[in-house]
């Protein structure tokens, strides 16, 4: 499906935008990981929205990339701490400044930019990852405390080309719009399903002394309240988690635009709009 659009066509950038992109060399490093992320999270098929993202990605990625830049430890560390941990199944050993949080270690040192920084103080959930299988906030976790831990980020949810059921359900139910909160939502949802399987209770559980809890939509809403979505994709998120939990598939109510139809849409919208 990647072949469906012309490699050479990119978004038209204004002079200002070109200048901005040139001034942001850091973005070029992000390109590769972002492409991998898109490939993984949207591999089920490319929607118009994803195509647009991919085109922008290409434009940014066309600027020279220097992956080494990401690994450069920079100036000498003030209080270096050595940490060995597993990230998405791979053993990693890092020397970090004692102040570095896991979020920054993932993004700045391990080239895993799927995990997002929103508030950087525990208030939004964008940075959610799984540590030893539990959902936590990487912005309030010191990297130094991750010695011997197993970290799973959004990049590690899929098995090769096969999406995690939660990822597939998010696509099916439009569980995102801009996508910024999505990596955190996905990891949080995966953690939530484990907690529900264990029988954990929540603030809306009527009887906390009972041994079983049914994962109603209200339960999902409460248990996902630590993940804010500025786009308000909540209905899709709840539906996606409900399906991933129950395993009962409901029919998809929309489809991807492809081929000729896509060309027609593009024509209708006009050449200067990126669709």
């Amino acid at each position, binding site marked *: 499906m990647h072949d469906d659009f012309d490699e050479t066509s990119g978004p038209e950038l204004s002079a200002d935008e070109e200048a901005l992109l040139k001034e942001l060399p850091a973005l070029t490093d992000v390109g590769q990981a972002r492409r991998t992320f898109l490939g993984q999270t949207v591999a089920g098929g490319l929607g118009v929205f994803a195509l647009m993202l991919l085109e922008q990605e290409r434009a940014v990625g066309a600027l020279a990339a220097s992956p080494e830049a990401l690994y450069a430890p920079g100036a000498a560390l003030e*209080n270096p701490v050595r940490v060995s941990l597993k990230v998405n199944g791979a053993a990693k050993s890092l020397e970090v400044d*004692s*102040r570095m949080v896991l979020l920054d270690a993932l993004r700045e040192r391990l080239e895993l930019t799927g995990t997002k920084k929103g508030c950087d*103080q525990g208030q939004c959930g964008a940075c959610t990852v799984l540590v030893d299988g539990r*959902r936590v906030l990487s912005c*309030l976790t010191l990297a130094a*405390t991750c010695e011997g831990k197993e970290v799973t980020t959004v990049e590690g949810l899929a098995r090769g080309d096969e999406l995690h059921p939660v990822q597939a359900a998010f696509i099916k139910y439009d569980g995102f719009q801009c996508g910024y909160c999505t990596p955190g939502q996905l990891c949080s949802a995966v953690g*939530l399903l484990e907690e529900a399987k264990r029988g954990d209770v929540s603030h809306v559980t009527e009887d*906390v002394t009972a041994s079983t809890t049914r994962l109603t939509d209200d339960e999902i809403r409460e248990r996902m309240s*630590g993940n804010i979505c500025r786009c308000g994709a909540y209905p899709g998120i709840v539906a996606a988690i409900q399906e991933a939990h129950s395993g009962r598939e409901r029919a998809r109510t929309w489809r991807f635009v492809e081929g000729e139809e896509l060309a027609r849409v593009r024509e209708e919208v006009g050449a200067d709009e990126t669709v």
Partner: protein
Amino acid sequence: MRPFKYVRAADAVGAVRAVAMNPRAKFLAGGTNILDLMKEDVERPNELVDLSRLGLNEIRAAGGGVSIGALAKNTDTANHPLIRRNYPLLTQAIVAGASGQLRNMATNGGNLMQRTRCQYFYDTAMPCNKREPGSGCGALGGLNRIHAILGWSEKCVATYPGDMANALYALDAVVRVRGANGRVRTIPVGEFHRLPGDTPEKDNNLAHGELITAIELPKSSFAKHSYYLKVRDRASYAFALVAVAAALQVERGAVRQARVVLGGVAHKPWRSAEAEAALVGQPASEENFRRAAEAALKGAKPLAHNAYKVELGKRAVVRALMRASGLA
């Protein structure tokens, strides 16, 4: 964030020694409060002593009650069968706080120690006696919608923001701590936090270097009739404007024992002896709950922007007691 030395303590003795030796050292548990405050430059330790390898995370039956480790996570505590069955009030209070992710990180000891969410305390450009003794209180004459209506002083009008401690107080829990010289002592939860008085910089009665090792819950007669009610600006993931931990022992329709603890209204969990006295010996009825609520808020002194907390507090007390007694 300012530079600090990171130390992984191997055991409780080592952790206590490390912090006791350095007046600028602090313990690090889940990190959810201290790291936030360090990013804001409110907390400035030059050394963090990581407690995560200490163990101290057991939850077990002890002396008719239950002992919960200071390093046990909030999630594990709330969901432990011993807690859910015998202290559902504690489960409800814990899951009313923060978010799933935060409760997976937060420890019981760290939860007791969490600092106020007063905006002036967080903003280093503002005066705050708690952060910088003697600089004044920004909230007293400033925006004080979320602040105290009971027990405040001219020096500080902040509230203790936590939920768990309100339930622990109602359940007569004690905090077990270990000091530098190996001295072990217990502090009833109700005496753990302080009113601000002239020293708002001290949130509680723990000495520097003292480590919370466990929280002990005595056998409870409240398991059947308790309820944690939390009122906040949105349905979830927000601190309490007012919270009520209500616990009753009801026999043949009459209240034998009662606990009414309010959160979000004072510098510490606020237990109302007046409300409890109004309940004991009386039938469990809405009318009597209203009298108790009036008694609980009788001494309230609201600030410029939080008079709403007085009426809200009364209604919350009634509602929590109605739920606890099964009348609603």
